[in-house]
């Protein structure tokens, strides 16, 4: 980033213009101004953050930018500068530990990046220079170099394809490492370039580097000695991206256009937006509270100190006189340093180690998701993927799930079901399919068992065969094609051809056509070959492909048949085709389309148009012009497409079935039972989506559907806005006002609610709701809409554009109570909502890897969502919530006695505990058990969590991190702190605690309190642990043993580096006193007694909760049962 910014600042003039000019092979071109070699960055990839030299300062700087570290640094500095009770080591050591561990980790990661960078940068590539092939390191490629790449190599930089070894001037690449799409993509050479690259003199003018992988515009000027320079347009299909791999092609030559950090891959590499979990927000809130406690403690102590000192004889007793310096100091300065000293003394209340522990917990904990074999999908040979570990606990907090339909709820495994040609229905069921005749069933129109005319049939099938971007798999690949089919539609004999396409619909359609006798044989240098029913091969010249895009929702091809006819075939969604064809044709087909949609099929309409020569010439010119445009090419192309695709005639429609995902219904049901609201956001038609919703049991038979679609709006024949307003109010009355009270209605009672509502809205209406007239009514609509939606069990939004999906997510996210949202999707169109939601989940589906790349978690199948949320999410949340609360608790009862001690030591900032104990408490004595707990705890068995989805509601709304539980823990901490201090205080009313009459001093006092403290907080955790694995046993008992061992060790040696030996034998002496033993046991038990009582008396958890709870508040039986 910085480098780029610097480049912008210091770069040459060419940086300021919109495009760059590249001289192919660095050859000067005739007719251009003097050749000034423009400076581009070299081809070095730098993904590493640090170098050996700047590692220390840069890393330290970055670490201290974090507030917690900075706070501890300040404390440390205060300790160094001001005369404070504890030595700087006590806070310096933990800080040093934290910083060092993080630095080592980051250093290691950076070393790995360096290694990887080196591997890439030192990779040898072949460059053509002055007719010679030179091997040089990849990092030395300059813009303008002609690079040779052979099969299965990755491209070293972004190249414009000049020459391919394939005859048809194409090459195949996979972009698996860029966007994860593993299918082969075809790229084309720049048309009409010289075969001899040595003599090619050309310049390329293209836009400045930009990160969009799928956008590229440029122009190539080819200079020939005898002609005017020829201009060729360059698009993404000519650009080979760094990181992609050459496939199926022996070798290619390309000219480097973007190198190094300016390649699209490098530009795309950036940290994803930081999502913060709700738990983190809670932590920060608690932190603030504790900071206030800290400040007020220090303030109270400082005030009391001066009040106390003002009393006669207390300020400076004869036995403890002040130094001259102290006497001379200003009173207010003294007060201030006293205040700082108290701050330092109590600073342990804010635990430095909590951040480390939370990070460790998140990092290590996320492995359990990757390791889970239930998430492993044998079909794609992959398990779950965790892209961020920050959000583990957020999985347990989800209130809204936004799901895509295609590929998420459904398999995106298309099967051609039927088609309708000219109003006649052709079913394609295995039972009645014969190879070359259509099976006709009784549809509403085809009662007469009529068939459409043969001509129409063939036209339709030709359209299916021609209007697509499917590729035929090469023979070479066939060997690797295995027998097991995912598409069992066709018998293996027919399956000679493998098809590759970016969308499964297209394959299904081509296969459907094949079924009816029209086989697509392949595309061979702009010629499409199809075999018709008579087994003749028909050839069509492919003139133009008007690509599919989600806005137009259709695609077209322009072909020229052997007979010289120029035809345009178009297929697309009904809504985008119907307005562009004659209306009388529409009526015959619409019935079919709607019926198919209700059955849950995906429908496409097919239309065609014949272009006369003049028309074609005009269209051709426009298309070429638009393609050559350097700016706004997309918009210009779109305009031309829209212009061309008019006045077509409708031939027919297809229906393709998209099966439901495995266990989709069960998953949805479980989510709803868990109190999660499921919204389906799809680009599909309402009918299709609705039937999918029914199939997934999102809508049930009793569900009353509230529809807010273009159709319902147009019912009344009035203005849309008025009708919208009316409907909104009506629905609002129904769903919100007449519903049971909000609290019950929203959160608890949907199971028992008398009437369930489902809400349906479509994209057009949504935009009406969201951006209707600029007056205040818009926000009013929005809130009405939200309220209705929130009271519905399921919401279906159909006909959504990708951006609208994100809009909806955002709207819900920012609504009252800011609920936690989760988006799940598999395609590029879901990326926006995946990024928008609190938690984004990608399905490793068939629409490429874009969703997975942008997600926080990726899972192979929808059904895995259930375990991810109900088991993993719930457990992670409980674990981290407990971790946080426990951390604050244990530091509160750690520091409270020290605070209380100030009242007994003349507010002199005398520490109660020895420095070693202060330092080690959070690092060694109490850190491991809670870490183990927060990784391993299963307060409810995973099976029960999965079986009883409603358990998920117990942790909903951040249940264990709200102020109530926080107050409980804080009270507990205060109670324990008071008990520890005053218990020992009572004992010390007579400090003669040994049977030889000797007395104990202040360090014995502190050590007794500390021993009680360590044992109590550890045993408190032991009480909370419901799941004791050997690891828990090891760390809990190990920590206690370590404490005892350490105390003996620390007090058993005269430490030469210490100024004092105050703890020498204190611990051993303490253990020799029976009274000390007894008070320790007493205090530990007394502290834990309320806890045990609460544990016994509290509401039992687990699957039998309901039966048991109905009988008694006590839990004996249930608990026993679980043993």
């Amino acid at each position: 980033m910085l480098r780029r910014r610097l480049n912008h600042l210091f770069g040459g003039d060419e940086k300021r213009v919109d495009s760059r000019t590249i001289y192919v092979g660095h050859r000067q071109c005739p007719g251009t101004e003097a050749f000034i070699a423009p400076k581009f960055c070299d081809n070095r990839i730098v993904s590493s953050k640090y170098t050996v030299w700047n590692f220390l300062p840069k890393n330290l700087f970055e670490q201290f930018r974090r507030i917690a570290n900075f706070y501890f640094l300040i404390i440390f500095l205060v300790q160094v500068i001001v005369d404070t009770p504890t030595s700087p080591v006590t806070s310096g050591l933990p800080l040093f530990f934290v910083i060092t561990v993080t630095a080592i980790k980051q250093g290691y990661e950076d070393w790995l990046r360096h290694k990887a960078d080196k591997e890439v940068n030192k990779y040898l590539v072949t460059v053509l220079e002055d007719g010679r092939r030179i091997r040089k390191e990849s990092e030395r490629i300059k813009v303008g170099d002609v690079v040779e790449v052979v099969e299965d190599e990755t491209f070293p930089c972004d190249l414009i394809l000049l020459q391919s070894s394939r005859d048809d001037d194409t090459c195949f690449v996979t972009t698996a490492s860029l966007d994860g799409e593993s299918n082969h993509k075809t790229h084309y050479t720049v048309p009409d370039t010289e075969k001899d690259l040595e003599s090619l003199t050309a310049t390329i003018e293209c836009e400045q580097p930009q990160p969009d992988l799928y956008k590229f515009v440029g122009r190539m000027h080819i200079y020939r000695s005898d002609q005017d320079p020829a201009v060729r347009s360059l698009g993404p299909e000519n650009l080979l991206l760094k990181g992609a791999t050459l496939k199926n092609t022996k070798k290619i030559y390309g000219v480097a256009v973007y190198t190094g950090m300016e390649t699209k891959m490098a530009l795309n590499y950036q940290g994803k937006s930081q999502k913060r979990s709700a738990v983190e927000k809670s932590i920060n809130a608690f932190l603030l509270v504790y900071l206030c406690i800290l400040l007020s403690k220090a303030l109270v102590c400082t005030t009391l100190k001066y009040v106390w000192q003002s009393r006669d004889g207390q300020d400076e007793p004869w036995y403890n006189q002040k130094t001259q310096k102290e006497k001379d100091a200003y009173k207010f300065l003294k007060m201030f340093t006293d205040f700082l000293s108290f701050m330092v003394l109590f600073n342990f209340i804010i635990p430095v180690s909590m951040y480390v522990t939370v990070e460790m917990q998140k990092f290590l904990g996320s492995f359990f998701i990757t390791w889970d074999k239930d998430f492993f999908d044998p079909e794609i040979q992959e398990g779950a993927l965790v892209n961020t570990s920050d959000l583990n606990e957020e999985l347990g907090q989800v209130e809204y799930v936004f799901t895509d339909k295609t590929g998420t709820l459904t398999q995106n495994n298309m099967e051609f079901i039927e088609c309708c040609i000219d109003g006649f229905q052709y079913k394609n069921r295995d039972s009645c399919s014969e190879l070359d005749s259509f099976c006709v069933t009784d549809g509403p129109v085809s009662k007469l068992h009529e068939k459409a005319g043969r001509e129409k049939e063939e036209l339709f099938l030709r359209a299916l065969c021609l209007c697509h971007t499917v590729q035929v798999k090469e023979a070479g690949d066939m060997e690797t094609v295995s027998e097991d089919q995912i598409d069992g539609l066709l018998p293996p004999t027919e399956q000679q051809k493998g098809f590759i396409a970016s969308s499964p619909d297209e394959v299904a359609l081509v296969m459907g056509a094949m079924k009816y006798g029209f086989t697509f044989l392949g595309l061979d240098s702009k010629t499409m070959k199809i075999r018709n029913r008579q087994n003749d091969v028909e050839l069509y010249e492919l003139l133009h492909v008007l690509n599919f895009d989600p806005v137009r929702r259709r695609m077209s091809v322009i072909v020229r048949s052997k007979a010289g006819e120029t035809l345009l075939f178009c297929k697309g969604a009904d809504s985008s085709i119907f307005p562009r064809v004659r209306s009388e044709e529409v009526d015959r087909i619409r019935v079919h389309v709607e019926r198919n949609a209700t059955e849950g099929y995906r429908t496409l309409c097919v239309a065609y148009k014949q272009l006369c020569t003049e028309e074609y010439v005009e269209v051709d010119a426009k298309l070429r012009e638009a393609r050559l445009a350097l700016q706004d090419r997309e918009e210009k192309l779109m305009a031309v497409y829209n212009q061309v695709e008019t006045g077509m005639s409708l031939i027919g429609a297809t229906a393709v079935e998209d099966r439901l995902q495995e266990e989709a219904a069960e998953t949805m049901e479980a989510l709803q039972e868990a109190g999660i609201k499921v919204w389906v956001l799809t680009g599909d038609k309402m009918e299709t989506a609705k039937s999918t919703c029914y199939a997934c049991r999102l809508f049930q038979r009793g569900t009353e559907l509230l529809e807010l679609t273009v159709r319902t709006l147009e019912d009344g024949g009035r203005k849309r806005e008025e009708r919208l307003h009316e409907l909104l109010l009506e629905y609002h009355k129904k769903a919100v006002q007449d519903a049971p009270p909000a609290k019950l209605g929203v959160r608890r009672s949907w199971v028992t609610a008398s009437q369930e509502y489902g809400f349906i809205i479509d994209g057009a209406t949504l935009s009406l709701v969201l951006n209707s007239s600029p007056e205040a009514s818009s926000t009013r609509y929005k809130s009405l809409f939200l309220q209705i939606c929130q009271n519905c069990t399921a919401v279906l939004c159909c006909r959504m554009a990708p951006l609208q999906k994100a809009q909806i997510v955002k709207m819900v996210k920012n609504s009252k109570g800011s609920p936690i949202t989760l988006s799940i999707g598999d395609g590029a169109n879901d990326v926006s909502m995946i990024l928008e939601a609190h938690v984004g989940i990608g399905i490793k589906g068939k629409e490429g890897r874009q969703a997975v790349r942008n997600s926080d978690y990726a899972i192979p199948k929808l059904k895995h969502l259930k375990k991810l949320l109900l088991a993993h999410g719930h457990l992670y949340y409980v674990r981290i919530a407990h971790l946080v609360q426990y951390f604050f608790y244990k530091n509160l009862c750690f520091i409270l006695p020290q605070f209380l001690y100030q009242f007994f030591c003349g507010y002199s900032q005398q520490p109660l505990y020895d420095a070693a104990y202060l330092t080690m408490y959070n690092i060694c004595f109490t850190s491991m058990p809670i870490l183990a707990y927060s990784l391993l705890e299963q307060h409810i068995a995973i099976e029960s969590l999965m079986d009883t989805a409603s358990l998920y509601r117990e942790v909903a709304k951040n249940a264990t991190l709200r102020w109530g539980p926080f107050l409980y823990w804080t009270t507990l901490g205060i109670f324990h702190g008071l008990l520890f201090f005053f218990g020992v205080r009572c004992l010390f009313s007579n400090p003669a605690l040994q049977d030889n009459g000797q007395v104990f001093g202040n360090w014995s006092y502190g050590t007794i309190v500390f021993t009680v403290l360590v044992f109590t907080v550890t045993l408190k955790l032991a009480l909370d642990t419901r799941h004791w694995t050997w690891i828990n046993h090891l760390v809990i008992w190990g920590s206690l043993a370590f404490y005892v061992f350490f105390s003996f060790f620390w007090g058993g040696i005269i430490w030469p580096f210490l100024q004092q030996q105050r703890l020498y034998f204190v611990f051993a002496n303490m253990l020799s006193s029976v009274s000390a033993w007894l008070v320790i046991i007493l205090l530990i038990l007394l502290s834990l007694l309320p806890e045990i009582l609460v544990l016994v008396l509290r509401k039992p958890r687990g699957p039998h909760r309901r039966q048991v709870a109905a009988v008694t508040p006590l839990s004996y039986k249930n608990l026993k049962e679980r043993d």
Partner: protein
Amino acid sequence: MAASCWPASGFYREKKRNCSARTAIFDGGMMKNKEGEVANRPDNTAFTQQRLPAWQPMLSAGIVIPGFLVIGLVFIGIGVALFLGSQSIQVLESDYTGLNSNTPCYECSDASKKNCTCSIEFTLTKQFDGPVFLYYGLSNFFQNHRKYGVSRDYYQLSGDTAYFKNPSDSCSPYIYDSGVPIVPCGAAANSMFNDSFRLYQLVGGTKKPVPLDGKGISWWTDYNIVFRNPPLVNGSLAAAFNGTAKPVNWAKPAYELDTSDPSNNGFMNEDFLVWMRRAALPDFRKLYRRITQGDYAAGLPVGNYSLEISYNYPVIGFGGRKKIVLSNVSWMGGKNMFLGVAYLVIGSLCIVMSLVMLIVYAKYKFPEGDS
């Protein structure tokens, strides 16, 4: 914060993962990728699947009620023992600050009086079982003040003569006495308690001295390991302290603390060691002497006694009090009713709770056997 720094990041991660991902999808077939299967499938171990065998302790009624009962009984038992033990301890305590005219040592409370002695007479009507310990107690004296606590030089006290010349700064303002370094330096040593006591039994008008044993009153480790005298110079401890000054408040230098017994002199003087171990609270007592010898080894017999006090230590200036305590100890140390009472209360509480639970348990008629 910034927890996102944990997962390894980089360009290359994605690539690695995809190496084993299958390639073609829509060709109707699938790449056979056996290696991928082995590499990708998560380990099926108990740990990775979160299925480690675990003990799930449940506090069921069957455990809790008897548990509470047992704990209660044990606590009551200990409590009774403690209570009786504490009861049996005899304590004789007397404040001798002399604030009021009718209290002992009133005559000495005037700070201007030097070398004042006073005495407290008392009568034992019951045998005072031995061994008897003599404590002195101070109130409102902040030995646990931080500045006071650090105001000492450990290296000096461990006999390192290098620090005799240059005492630690922490001793300030008790480092130098008119330019000569103070040994032992610091407020702690300087304020050493210097009242002394002599106990007499009054037998028929004569004062029979009760021998007071000054040995074994300090921690063994303090006496044998932590505190060391400087190496003798020409066999003389005094010579080792050459070039140093005594603490300003002391009447005599450290090497004259106990001239009668060289092993109790200098920094090894047990009174000094007792003093140097800081008390935990501003009201404290410290062991002064033990009565373990002669006729009194078994305790102080019935009779009249006189305690002679040489009153030197000023406490009135800072609102303090001094007291003298005669006490014997039990196995649990000195007299302290707190522990016994606490154990009794907690013990009974446990029993009450177990009873309450039993009642609730019986009332709800939990079928015990049918789990």
